[in-house]
Each structure stands twice: as C-alpha cells, then as structure tokens.
C-alpha cells in the first residue's frame, strides 16, 4: 500500500500529472458553480478525453473534478441561494441568511474548510478500510455477486424516494438494454435489430454521455434564461472568521464527516441525503439550535463536511465490488473502461496503484479547490450569469465530438444523442436515470453470476439461499423492497394514535 501511495505521489508531481489535476480542479469548480450541471456532467463531458491516456493521469483528471465540485457548489448556495448541485441545497438554509447579514465571507470560509477537511477524513477512512475490503472481496463467489447486484439496484431505487417504483422500472429497462449484443454466457447475438453496430452491446461511454451531459443540456435549453440575476449587492468579507469557526465547532465537523462517509458507502444514498442528515444532526448537538435557518455557521459546516466526505465512502462499493454508489461513480466506471481497466470485484486487487492515484488526486483536489475558492469566490460566482443558451450548444458540441473521437464511429454520436433524449423523457416522467445507468453497468455481472451459480449447484437455485453471505444479501434486498410499505404502515399507526 505504501508503495502504491509513493508511486501515486510521483505521478502527481510530474508535469503531466500536475496539469491534469489542475485541469480537473478548474473544470470541477466551474461545473460545480453552475447550478443544474454538477460533477456527473463534468465527468461525462471529459470522459472521452481520457481514451488512451495513461491511467494515472486519467485518475488525476477525474480526482480533480470529483474533489472540486462540491466546493464550487457551495459558493452559489451562499451568495445567491441557488445550490450548484442538490447536495449543496442544505447549505442554503444558513449560508444564504449569513450572506444577507453581510457574513458571506465567513460562510464561504467555513464551507470551504469544512468541505476540505470532510473530504480528507473520507479519504483516510477509505484508505483504512482497503485492506479489510480486499479480504472480504475474496470471500465473494458468483451467488454473492448476483445478490449484490440485485441489492445494489434495490437500494438505489429505494434512495430515489418518491420515485421508488419507477426507479425499479428504470432498473428493469437498464437491464434489458444491458442484454443487447453478444451474450457472455452463450455467445449468441441478442436484441440487435440486425445492426452490426450493436453486436458489442450498448457502448457505455456514449450512453453515459448522452444520459448526463446531453440530457442536462436539453433541460437547460428548455428552462432558458440565466441562472442568477444579480450579484451586485453581495459582499465577500471576513473569510478567516469562517475558517476558524470550523475548528471551534470541531464536533459538528467530525460528525458531518462521519455521516457523509457512512451514507456515501451505501449505494444510491449520495451527497444530498448525507448533507441533509448532517444538517439535522448538527442542529441536535448545537448549543444554539433555535438560530438554525437564520444564519448559524454550524448549519454550513455540518452539510459541507458531509457533502465532501461522501466521496471517500462512495468509492468503497465502487472500488471493492464494482457497484457504483452514485451516478457520478457510474460514469467514473465508464472512464475506467476507456483506460483499459475492467470495473468489477478485482479492481482493487489488480489495479491498486491506479486507485491510489485517484485517492491522492481527490485529496489534493479538496485542498486546491478550497484555496482557489477562498481567493476567487466572486469571479467564480459570476459564471452563473452566463446565458444557458451559450452553455448548452457548447457542451453538446464538445461532448458529441468527444464521443466520436473515442472509436471513430458515427453510430456512437447517434446513440449519445438518443440516450440524451431518453434521459430527458425519463426526467420529465419521474423515472430516475441513476437506476437505469447502474442496471446498464451491472447487467453483465448479474447475468454471468446467475448462470455460474446455477452451474456450481447443478441447476439448483437454492444456492442463493444456502450460503450465509448470499442469504444476508438476499434479506437486505427484500428489506429494501418492503421498506416503503413498512414506512407507510408506521405513518398510518402514528396517525391513528390518539394525541397525548
């Protein structure tokens, strides 16, 4: 592990490594600042550029983006009450009232430092659990991987809240799409409509670029206008006051980081849930809970620490089992495919060095993004004044050129555009894209594991329930599926109870 860390450090200090890290940080900050775009789109947009790139440099670029996005998103939450991404929404509750009271600088200082320290704590936890994870991975066989795939899908659908049923349906559609092309089990060509282009299946990178970059641009294009209207009245002073507040409220910071890391490790529960849970928890331990929502700096520190520490947590299922914990991680798996690394259970064992480059880049990005944020807050916030009709055609053109450049196939461009439209239709009708993407990624693993398990058992499906780990995963999957019903019953019981 020490060897991998040192190798990653060496890469980071090469001119190319530093350049890609810096590029990632800048792109992450800019995409984090612009509401409605976020890290997933940024990774999807730059993903084609990583084709053929040295894997370590590609990790520098991706780590740079992932670590910087949340720092960018907090700026607009505080200055204009418009979160850069959904995970930054909880920061608005107290960040914006602080800006209205002339304490925008303190709020930004606190958000930046909480975000950095939270991110670093998340990374430390990830590095600490890697040796244990390696042992656990080796205990998993085909039945466990099949059950794990089902559990990943069910837990992600559950995390979509009110869209639970449609999340499961989107997962079903994603699985159907993953069956297109050669069957890894039988070698038959399936569901291709006679198109040779589809023999290798739905190409992941164009599909992900379409579902995130193109879809988001269609949504921006429909919404129109500029994202923010006026920044002229906002003053940014007193940044150091916010920086010190993070150390003064260290319990809130640590609690937020712990919540973020834990929630991040559960597939589907991303930064949004982590930030809101952390906000509520910060209120509970605060000596001054009644000022929450009116400009309490602890209401900024808690969610921002959780928001960035979730990255370390969400890398745990992604690196250990190839189960993407979030949309961002699903797109990241596409990057791995492009640089010649097969996502899956052996990722951490076969490519430990590359993964440490990512961990190091993420940690460095947290620090660099914070430094940039503290220096150029106002110019960064001005990005939100750009007309969306400039952003949309630029991103669409660049992403489609990038998709074509991967394999010089015009079909990839058509596929990316088609998935862009599919993604927008899904968005309008309440079908979460995340479950479709995760199913698309997991389809092959699930099908191959299913057949391997049956081969192992001589065709007896009981193999899924006679092995302890597989049974535990099955129970957890069923738990995810019945949880909404349990919630409904609990609500009814509570409503039926007479007021005391």
């Amino acid at each position, binding site marked *: 592990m020490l060897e991998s860390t040192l190798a990653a450090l060496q890469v980071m200090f090469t001119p190319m490594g530093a350049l890609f890290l810096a590029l990632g940080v800048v792109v992450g900050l800019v995409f984090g600042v612009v509401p409605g775009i976020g890290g997933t789109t940024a990774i999807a947009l730059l993903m084609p550029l990583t084709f053929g790139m040295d894997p370590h440099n590609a990790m520098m670029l991706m780590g740079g983006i992932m670590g910087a996005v949340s720092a960018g998103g907090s700026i607009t939450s505080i200055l204009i009450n418009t979160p850069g991404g*959904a995970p930054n929404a909880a920061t608005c509750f107290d960040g914006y009232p602080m800006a209205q009271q002339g304490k925008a600088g303190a709020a930004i200082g606190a958000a930046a430092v909480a975000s950095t320290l939270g991110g670093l704590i998340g990374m430390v936890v990830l590095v600490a659990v890697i040796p244990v994870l390696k042992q656990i991975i080796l205990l998993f066989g085909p039945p466990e991987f099949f059950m794990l795939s089902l559990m990943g899908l069910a837990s992600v659908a559950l995390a979509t809240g009110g869209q*639970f049923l449609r999340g499961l349906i989107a997962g079903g559609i994603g699985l159907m799409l993953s*069956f297109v092309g050669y069957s890894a089990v039988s070698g038959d060509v399936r569901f291709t409509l006679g198109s040779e282009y589809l023999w290798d299946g739905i190409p992941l990178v164009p599909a992900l670029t379409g579902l995130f970059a193109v879809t988001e641009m269609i949504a921006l294009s429909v919404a129109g206008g500029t*994202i923010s209207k006026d920044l002229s009245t906002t003053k940014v002073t007193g940044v150091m006051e916010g920086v010190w507040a993070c150390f003064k409220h260290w319990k809130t910071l640590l609690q937020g980081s712990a919540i973020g890391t834990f929630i991040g490790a559960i597939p589907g529960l991303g930064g949004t849930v982590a930030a*809101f849970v952390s906000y509520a928890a910060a209120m509970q331990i605060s000596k001054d809970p009644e000022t929450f929502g009116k400009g309490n700096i602890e209401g900024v520190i808690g969610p921002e620490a959780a928001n960035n520490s979730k990255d370390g947590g969400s890398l745990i299922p992604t690196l250990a089992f190839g189960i993407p914990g979030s949309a961002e991680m699903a797109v990241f798996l596409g990057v791995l495919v492009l640089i010649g690394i097969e996502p899956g259970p052996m990722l951490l064992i076969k490519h430990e060095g590359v993964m440490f480059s990512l961990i190091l880049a993420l940690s460095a990005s947290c620090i660099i993004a914070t430094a940039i944020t503290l220096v150029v807050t106002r110019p960064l916030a001005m990005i939100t004044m750009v007309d969306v009709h400039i952003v949309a*055609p630029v991103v669409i053109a660049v992403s*489609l050129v990038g998709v074509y450049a991967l394999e010089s196939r015009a079909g990839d461009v058509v596929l990316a555009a088609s998935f862009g439209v599919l993604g927008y239709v899904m968005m309008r*009708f309440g079908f979460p894209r995340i479950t479709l993407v995760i199913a698309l990624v997991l389809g092959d693993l699930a099908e191959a594991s*299913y057949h391997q398990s049956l081969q192992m058992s001589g065709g007896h499906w009981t193999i899924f329930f006679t092995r302890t780990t597989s049974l535990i995963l099955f129970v957890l999957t069923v738990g995810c599926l019945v949880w*909404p019903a349990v919630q409904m019953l609990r609500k009814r019981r509570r409503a039926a109870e007479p007021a005391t």
Partner: protein
Amino acid sequence: MTASVRWRDLSVALLVLAASIGFLLWAKTYPPRSGAVPELVAWATIVLSLIDIVSQFETPWGLWLRRLVTAEKIVEWKMEGDEDASLGRILAAIGWVAGYVVMLYFIGFLIATPIYMFLYMHFHGGLRLLTNLLVTAGTALTIWVTFEIAFKYPLYPGVLLGGY
C-alpha cells in the same frame, strides 16, 4: 390528469408495459441459456408496470398502491421554469439536438458544429450577433485545433464530403 385517472403517467406506464411484453416475446425467440435472464427481467418489469398502471387510478386500490410505492421524497433541486415548460419548447430543444446530429451525418463536425451553434444561439437563444459569433468561432476553433491539429485526429467529414 382528470379526477379519476392520472392520464399523463398512465400513458407512460402503458408504453413501458407494451415495451416489456415486446421484450419478453423477443427473449422467448432465443435458446434458454441466452433468453432465461432477459425473460426473468421482462417478467419483473411487466409486474412493476402493472403496479404502476393500477396506482394511476384514483380508486382505493390505486391510492393504496401509490402510497405503498412512494417513500418520503428526497429534496431535489430543479431549475426554475423547467416544470412549466411548454411541449413546443421541449420539442424545440430536442429538435436542435436531432438537427445537429443529422447535419453531422451529412456535412461532418467541422462544418456542422459552427452552423448548429450559430443557428441555435440566434433563433433559440436570441443572443446578440457579436456574442453569438465569438462563442461559435471560439468553440469551432478549439475543436479544430484540439483534434485536427494537436491530436492529428481526423473528425468525421460527413457523407457528402467523403465520410461513410
């Protein structure tokens, strides 16, 4: 949406059901080893779609199912104005992407990209001519320099100009 049925959601649920049944029938045309898991997934999606369909009716069963399948919704930030967008605006936004792809097929990236960007920003975005020209030229130039000059990577020229 009427008082008795949520038509908008019902029509989508029916479409998904039809697609799932179609996929099931298609999966049955393959040998068991190739079609078993696809069939299983199709059946699961059919059952889920049926639940979705029933939950769109304002009947006791429909309401019960709707409550059953919706946990407390996670706060999700949405861009202002998007929810109320007219069908025309949505079709226009999708149409611009489709138009760009069609142009790419015929005249390739280097010609289609500036044309698409200029027309989009002029007609859909209503931007000033100078801003439009600067952004269009800047993006087209960046793409050309990055791919054709720096990477020596030939971009698709379009079927009319020698592509296939």
